[in-house]
């Protein structure tokens, strides 16, 4: 789900009480496509035993960008422009949104 302002049609992420700039409070929840593209990506080199992890900015098909990580591919093989699809991951601390390359989705 993602917020959308009724009057302007613009999507808003992260969720707020009002649309940025206009201050309109006509935000509604709509289904998100889950589609996006990698805007930038890095590999966080962690201390062992924690494996290296990906960190990426995803440009959602709806417009806004969100911080996330790309899974299902080696962290250093993620590329800018790569088409990705959202899925929900839960590692025990509660569910959150990650992305995987579209062809693997």
């Amino acid at each position, binding site marked *: 789900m993602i917020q959308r302002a009724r009057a302007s049609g613009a999507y808003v992420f992260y969720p707020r009480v009002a649309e940025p700039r206009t201050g309109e409070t006509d935000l509604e929840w709509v289904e998100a496509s889950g589609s996006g593209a990698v805007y930038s*990506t890095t590999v966080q080199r962690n201390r062992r035993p924690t494996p290296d992890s990906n960190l990426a*900015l995803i440009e959602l098909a709806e417009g806004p960008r969100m911080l996330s990580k790309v899974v299902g591919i080696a962290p250093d093989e993620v590329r800018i422009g790569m088409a990705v699809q959202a899925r929900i991951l839960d590692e025990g601390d509660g569910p959150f949104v990650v992305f995987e390359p579209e062809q693997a989705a």
Partner: protein
Amino acid sequence: MNDAFPRGKTAIVSTATYGMGEAPGLQSIDLLAHASIAALAKAGLTPADVDGVFTGMPFDLLSGLSVPEYLGIEARITDNNRTGGSAFQTLAVAAALALDSGQCDVALIAYGSNLRTGVGAIAPPPPDPFEWAYKARYPISAYALAAVRHMHEFGTTREQLAEVAVAARAWANRNPLAVKRGPLTVDDVLGARMVCDPLTVRDCCLVTDGGAAVVMTRADRARDLAARPAYLLGGAAATTHNRIAAMPDLTVTGAVDSGRRAFAQAGYGPGDMDALQLYDAFTINPILFLEDLGFCPKGEGGRFVSGGRIAPGGEFPVNTNGGGLSCVHPGMYGLFALAEAADQLMGTAGEHQLDRPVELSLAHGNGMLLSSQATVILGSASTL
């Protein structure tokens, strides 16, 4: 927009740093106080002479109260800016406006942090409900994302990033107070431990202790307090985001706006500057700021810094104290950049004083994750 600035109406009359490196046993506010008292003494002043306090201690949300109390200052105006490391350039603008309007007569801009030796005392920030799961290693991860995007769009290379660190080290080698000295090559930077691709540990600023202070008065009094005051010719800030996901374009910072306005106020352009202090939390920063402040076209920053152009002996002296990369970086570096810009102009930089005349000096601050940018332009009496 009427973006007026009291050009030349106020000046920096003295600066000081204290405890750069490791200062065990001292609290952050102790470092701030040492630097403040030393800076005031250089101008023949004491804390009791101060009536405007401009500060922002990293882990003391009420430093607008604790700093005046500690130093015994009866403050008529206080400012406790919270825009990250650029806060101190913004505070210099606020101090200039307050001095010019008569809200205060002696302004103290002060900072201190025992980030290195006192790190155990820091409480982690509360988890971000929208980002906690990704375990981002801020701030470096955000700068890595910006660097990757810059490399993708403009062909910037890791070698060009490394040139920034090598230049900073060469400047630090001229500065006895710089924390990190000794030889450093491009290969050393490239071969250092990778932290967040493409940034190695040598692409990252230091983690040190340190305090800094800058004293400002109106121009008429400045002439009595300093042999060669550093007049504020212009100053402007621009804030674009907090979270890196909300940055409109990862290759363009608010320095485009802050720089354009500060230069317009000053009546000078990039090519007129004799020395630049550009907040170098990471090696990508000076590249972005040289582009955004107008020293080279967008995308050319990597090539611009190559061949030693910003190193000692180069065309554009950048971060002449060694910067955040090799001199000092106690959590926030902005005030150290401002102090160095003023010292180079006042001729008080000591052993690392530039061997060329400095009539116009620029200090650029960067806050949080490229979030806030603030530019201050200083000039000698001959530039008024």
